[in-house]
């Protein structure tokens, strides 16, 4: 929770991957990690990629540990780190960050203090079909 205002940029690649992942599993909660870096001027966090994680068995620890280790390994060779966490709830009107999501977010924050959490707004996702709004369908929380 920094006192200076940090900007967050989400690349199209990352955004689309996350939305497609949630659409592929409409009946369960999904989550994923956001990959990126801090820009050189130290005021923007660029989220350049995303890795979808699970669509079942979300709250269980072993898979999370292994996936975080492997992801960290893979992306550190490219100079990127884990900068955030993405979550989409099971029910269409559940717009709260559940206990599990908060815990995972806190854990990521320990390694990257400016990490952000993106929560999918299911109602806006549904509205996308009918309208062509370009507003973000996710809510960011830090």
């Amino acid at each position, binding site marked *: 929770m920094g006192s200076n205002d940090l900007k967050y940029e989400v690349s199209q690649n990352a955004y689309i991957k996350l939305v497609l992942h949630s659409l592929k599993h409409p009946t369960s909660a999904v989550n994923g990690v956001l990959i990126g870096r801090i820009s050189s001027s130290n005021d923007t966090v660029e989220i350049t990629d995303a890795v979808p994680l699970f669509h079942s068995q979300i709250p269980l620890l*072993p898979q999370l540990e292994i996936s975080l280790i492997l992801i960290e*390994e893979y992306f550190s060779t490219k100079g990127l780190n884990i900068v955030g966490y993405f979550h989409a709830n099971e029910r269409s009107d559940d717009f709260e960050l559940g206990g599990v999501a908060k815990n995972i977010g806190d854990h990521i924050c320990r390694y990257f203090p400016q990490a952000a959490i993106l929560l999918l707004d299911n109602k806006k996702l549904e509205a996308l079909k009918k309208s062509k709004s370009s507003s973000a369908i996710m809510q960011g929380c830090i």
Partner: protein
Amino acid sequence: MVTKTEESELKNLEIQVDNGGGGAWEYLSLVRKLKVRRSDKVLKHGLSILNDSKLRSKLGADEWTLYEQVAVAAMDCQCLDVAQDCTKALRKRFSESKRVGRLKAMLLEAKGSWEKAEKAYSSLLEDNPLDQIIHKRRVAMAKAQGNISGAIEWLNKYLEIFMADHDAWRELAEIYSSLQMYKQAAFCYEEVILAQPTVPLYHLAYADVLYTLGGLENVQTAKKYYASTIDLTGGKNTRALFGICLCTSAIAQLAKGKNKEDKEGSQLQSLAAKALERDYKQRAPDKLPQLTTALKSLTLSS
């Protein structure tokens, strides 16, 4: 839970029907038998049969089963008018039936009229207190409304009567896990494993929960269950292999102060690591370097 052969048969039929190759009725019957959730495909192909009067008359008495299947699929896809039409047709034919009454209540549930649906289900249960499907619908309704504690209460009551329903135990375990009540989730998985000891998926899930609970004994038991999963799947389950590596390093960390020599444990870990490397070489050779560094970091930390 579907086996791999059934899953591939289902997929083949799905592709065949999607590309206009016929066989829609076989596909729908297989979906019904396996109880999988393919509501959009069921709706599409079911409606194509029902709207064609020639195909419909060929079905004979099975026509009504198809109406029921399409009605439920339509409710899942939120096509409530289709669901209503199907239910009307069934009501005309079977006006006094409990199954149709259940469909009507499900329609109310799909529309979101929770209290009316609740009343309908309660009255159906009064006439028929042992109807499993209605009990489960009540649990599902509580879950859909966000009333998780209510869902847990109903599910526990249901399991007191129908203790052998392992799907219900599994659902309860998943609900407990999502609330991070891992001890209760472990208990549910134990029930499931007792009922079906040869299904590796449950061993795996139980081991996951035990590892998440933490503590030396739990992690040691988790290792045993990962090992049994590997045994049951012939060494092909990647998650279980990873689980063994994680468990061994966790045990070594936890047992540091207790001065225990666990030679057999490290042998198990190196075997698991070798199996993982072989698997990755076959299926994803470009990810192999990440795997080796990750495994090394796990053994280093132990």
